[in-house]
Structure formats: structure tokens, C-alpha cells
């Protein structure tokens, strides 16, 4: 077995010292015991669990909202498209073409040019008729 040497110290020796150091770093029973015997530890764990659960319920709500985003966007796009097409349709009905009467229907044709007579018109018509009779 070939043992590599680094500045006269074998890798095996380095490994052994490394193992000793790792073990030395892990000797901490007193602190571990002190930490485990803290009387408030369980209360803190409970409080952390409650915080985490509250946060997770928010996350669930956000996830649901996030999933609803595409559907809501589609509905919004459809509503905008409907609005635009409706306003374009209203604009084109104001222009009279040869086909317009066919588009707007019989009632439209009948009442399109009809003007309501005012009381002045009625009075003027009566006066005209009276003048014509008088002139005869």
C-alpha cells in the first residue's frame, strides 16, 4: 500500500488527526443537555407550528388565486372584445347605405324620417288653411 506523504506527514496521520478533531468538535453534551431542558422550548415549538400553519394557509389561498388568474384574464379579454365589437356595431349603424333599411328592419324604415309635429306647426297649418279660404 502506497502511503502519500505531505511534508513528511502521512495521509493516514492526517486522517487520524482529522477524525480526532471531528470528534472533539462534537463533544457538546453539556450545552445540548442545557438546551433540551429549557422549560419554554415546547411552548416555542407550538408557537412556531401555529405561525407556520397560518403562513401555509395564506400560501394555499395565494396558490388558489394564482390558479384563477388565467381564467380571470380570459374573462377580461372576452369582456373587452365584446365591448369593442358592440361599440363598432353602434358606430356603423349611423351610416345610411342602400342596405341599411334591410339591416334596421321595417319599424326603422317607418319611423326613421318621421318628425313629431309641434304645436306651432299645427297652428301654422290651421292659419294657412284659413288664409287660403279667405283668399277665395
Amino acid at each position, binding site marked *: 500500500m502506497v502511503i502519500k506523504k*505531505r*511534508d513528511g*506527514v502521512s*495521509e493516514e*496521520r*492526517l*486522517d487520524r*488527526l*482529522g*477524525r*480526532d*478533531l*471531528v*470528534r*472533539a*468538535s*462534537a*463533544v*457538546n*453534551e453539556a*450545552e*445540548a*443537555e*442545557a*438546551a*433540551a431542558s*429549557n422549560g419554554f*422550548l*415546547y411552548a*416555542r*415549538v*407550538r408557537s*412556531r*407550528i401555529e405561525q*407556520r*400553519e397560518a403562513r*401555509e394557509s395564506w400560501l394555499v389561498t395565494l396558490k388558489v388565486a394564482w390558479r384563477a388568474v388565467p381564467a380571470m384574464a380570459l374573462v377580461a379579454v372576452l369582456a373587452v372584445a365584446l365591448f369593442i365589437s358592440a361599440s363598432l356595431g353602434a358606430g356603423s349603424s349611423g351610416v345610411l347605405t342602400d342596405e341599411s333599411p334591410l339591416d334596421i328592419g321595417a319599424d326603422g324604415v317607418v319611423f326613421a324620417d318621421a318628425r313629431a309635429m309641434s304645436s306651432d306647426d299645427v297652428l301654422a297649418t290651421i292659419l294657412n288653411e284659413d288664409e287660403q279660404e279667405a283668399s277665395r
Partner: protein
Amino acid sequence: MDETVDSSAPPEEQGVAPDDAQLVGRVVAGDEAAFEELFNRHRRRVALIAGRFFRRREQIEEIIQESFTKAYLALADFSNERETSFASWLARISFNTCYDELRRQKRRPEGSMSEVSEEESEWLKGRLRVEGAGEDIESAAVARDLAHKLLARLSPEDRLLLVMLDVEGMSVSEIAEINRWSVSKVKVRAHRARASLRKVLGRFL
């Protein structure tokens, strides 16, 4: 004389403490006291695992709290058939929590990368050069400080593996099971971890 015990009665009524699996079942059913019992049974073990990696009491307490919180939230997933025991399942959570904390510390620039003092460097050289150098209480204290400083220079993966191998005395298959790695991956990583530690020690020659 009628001394028959009703086997369908709860374990407490039979005078037998419920085992971990039974307590887990009760916690999942909504019994908070059962979780406190689990906490009291296993907190020392979790504290010992945390003490392998962290020196300060607050850090150890933090690991205990985080480990039990994670365990509580994952209890529904815990299945006694799949896992060997609640204790080993909790140990895995604790090791993972320590690993996460080591990674978090490594990311922080003010992490525990303290400089090795002249005295510690001399001590290390002495240990390397002199075969069978004596160990007294003073040198053990130096060793502990120095060990933490040197191990802080390793990656969290290397440190985790070395502690599992050299301190916990776990077998390669046990480490593979805890970390959910393949056996060959554990072997390769262990080899690299030893090489990294040799490299760190070699700088003091």
C-alpha cells in the same frame, strides 16, 4: 380471580406507555398532548444531534424547535410501515435541519470562519509531528475550538458526512438511508470529505 386485561383498551389503561407509532396516530387525530409526549421523549436526542454541529445553546435550541416543527407538519406523511421508526425519522429531519443551518451559515460572509490563532496552529503542528502527543484537559479545550474553526472551512456536505461517520459511528448504508443517497454516492462523498479535511490540515504544516 379475574386478572385478565382487556387488550382492546388504550395502552395507558393497561398500564403500558403507548409507543411512538401510537402517539403519532393520536397526534394526527388531533391530540396535542400526544405530541408533547413525543417531544419530551425525543428532545434530548435531537439536542445531541444539534450539539454535534453547533456550539452555542441558542443554536441548539433553534435546531430543536425547527426539527420538531418540521416533524409535526409532516406527521401525516409519516408511515410507520415505510420508516424504520419514529426516532430514526426524526433523526433524519434533525440532520437535515442541521445541514440547512450549516448551509445558511456558509452563505453568510460573517460566518464562523474565524482565524486560527498562533497557539492553535502550534498545537496542531505538534500533534502532527509528534507521534502520540499527550492529551490533557487544556489541549482538549484547544482542540474543540480549533476543530470548530477548521470544520467551518469544509463544505456542509463534508461536515455532515464526517460527523455521521466519525462521531455517530453510522454505517455507509445508514447514512445513505438518512440522506436518501445511494451507497456509492456516500462512499464517494466520504472519500472527498476526508481529502478536503486533509487539505485543510495540510495548510498548517
